[in-house]
């Protein structure tokens, strides 16, 4: 495969994780502007895992996911009990705070005569696991694709389960969900943990694909984009956010079609869709219609 294409597809795959994490929260009716923080936590934790602690990649990715899940739970616990925009506001504040914490984090050790590890605003260099092991970009893409496919399969099962229906009930009407016997708070906490873990996994992959990360990468633009991916692609299925990522990165960012005008096109796309299809291209109604056709 052509190297450029491999790079684009890997990017789509990794960003899809953080888009899915924002999507999971949207399902239960919570808007997060801070998923970049958990992407960042995952990237740093997994990076430290392989580069500083010399752990195998799988373990490092798992640590990244768990660290991010814990972070997201810490944010969700105090804010999910409140109704309204508190979680959205807190998520933005938390993410900015996290970015500054990362800028202040110094944790370097000497390896092979070179300092590796987070070095504040200078970033975190030398996450060379896949290069040291001679893993080809195409092989790494395969890993990303396999993890993404497994995640999507898991989400597909989840959405068809009772729990999946419960999520949508909570997202549609919290009060009615509670009256229908659903423990709204715990359901949302479970989603927060899953969302954090997904964002963290994506971040861990990202750190290893790019070998270098810095706090600046995890700013609010990433969070806003991940939120927008679900809103563009659709909230009816986990394939919606993936479609959103594909449209943005695959079409707008990677081709030169809208060079220089990407953000205008992207912003316009979001605005038009919010008016025309508030729940995205692949929304619940479309899926319902497809399901009815399928049954016939």
């Amino acid at each position, binding site marked *: 495969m052509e190297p450029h294409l491999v790079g684009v597809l890997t990017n789509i795959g990794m960003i899809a994780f953080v888009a899915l994490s924002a999507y999971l929260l949207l399902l239960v009716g919570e808007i997060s502007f801070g998923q970049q923080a958990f992407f960042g936590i995952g990237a740093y934790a997994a990076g430290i895992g392989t580069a500083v602690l010399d752990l195998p990649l799988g373990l490092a990715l798992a640590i990244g996911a768990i660290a991010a899940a814990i972070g997201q739970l810490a944010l969700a616990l105090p804010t999910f009990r409140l109704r309204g925009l508190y979680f959205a506001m807190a998520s933005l504040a938390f993410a900015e705070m996290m970015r500054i914490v990362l800028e202040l984090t110094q944790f370097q050790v000497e390896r092979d005569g070179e300092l590796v590890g987070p070095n504040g605003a200078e970033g975190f260099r030398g996450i060379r696991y896949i290069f040291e092991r001679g893993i080809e970009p195409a092989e790494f893409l395969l890993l990303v694709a396999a993890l993404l496919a497994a995640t999507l399969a898991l989400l597909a099962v989840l959405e068809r389960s*009772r729990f999946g229906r419960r999520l*949508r009930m909570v997202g549609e*009407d919290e009060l009615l969900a*509670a009256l*229908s*016997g*659903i*423990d709204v708070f715990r359901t949302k906490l479970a989603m927060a943990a899953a969302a954090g873990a997904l964002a963290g996994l994506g971040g861990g992959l990202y750190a290893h694909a790019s070998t270098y990360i810095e706090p600046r990468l995890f700013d609010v633009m990433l969070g806003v984009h991940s939120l927008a991916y679900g809103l563009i692609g659709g909230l009816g299925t986990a394939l919606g956010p993936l479609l959103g990522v594909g449209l943005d990165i695959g079409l707008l960012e990677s081709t030169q079609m809208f060079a220089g005008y990407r953000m205008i096109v992207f912003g316009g796309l979001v605005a038009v869709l919010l008016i025309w299809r508030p729940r995205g291209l692949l929304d619940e109604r479309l899926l319902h219609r497809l399901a009815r056709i399928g049954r016939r």
Partner: protein
Amino acid sequence: MLALDGIAKHFGGIRAVDDLALTVAKGEILGLIGPNGSGKSTTVNLICGLYPVTAGRITLDGRDITDLPTHRRLSEGIARTFQNIRLFGGLTVWQNLWVAQNAPAHRKERGYLARWLGGSKQAREETGRLLDFAGLAHRKDELAANLAFGEQRRLELARALATRPSLLLLDEPAAGMNAEEIAALDERIRELKRQGYTIVLIEHHMELVMAVSDRVCVLNFGRKIAEGTAAEVQADPAVRQAYLGTA
């Protein structure tokens, strides 16, 4: 069956419900009336636990449910409908009933295995009966959001019944209905009484309340100002004053 003992709900300085005592006997229909803002809806919200009481106790069949969280009141047998209809618009008619029947709170008490073995066919029949009761059998695969207003009202009632409640709280079920629909609702409520449900009915449509209620309780400014049969309440000077003002 249901007993409210000195319950109060204050929103800041506003006393939406104040020192209210109320009992509802098993199998009875209690009409709850009063001018706008008199605390009827707040009372219903307190019974189903949408917000905590400021003071007082609520008991159901002798069990204290005052501090029970909202999602656990379902398994105590409390179900309600809303003045402004609340349905899961993104689910179909059938699914709305299905999720009510299969509420997680119910599943625990009936056992996973029992459901697995014999539950589903029985549940399907029950859904069918509810669809017939609500006259929605032909609409069962339609999204709830796409239903007409009257159909949504009927679905909401069926949804409440699907949770197998013993106590039904109906918050203005006749709001927005025409005379014909109200007559059908009247018949439906009587049918529910025959089936043994206990009902608290909030309604502004006096003809309906007076016709179906065994007892009527009148609220004004969060307090009970009269209670008795329809005839007694209608003759009560305090009630006339609350509704019509002093002559």
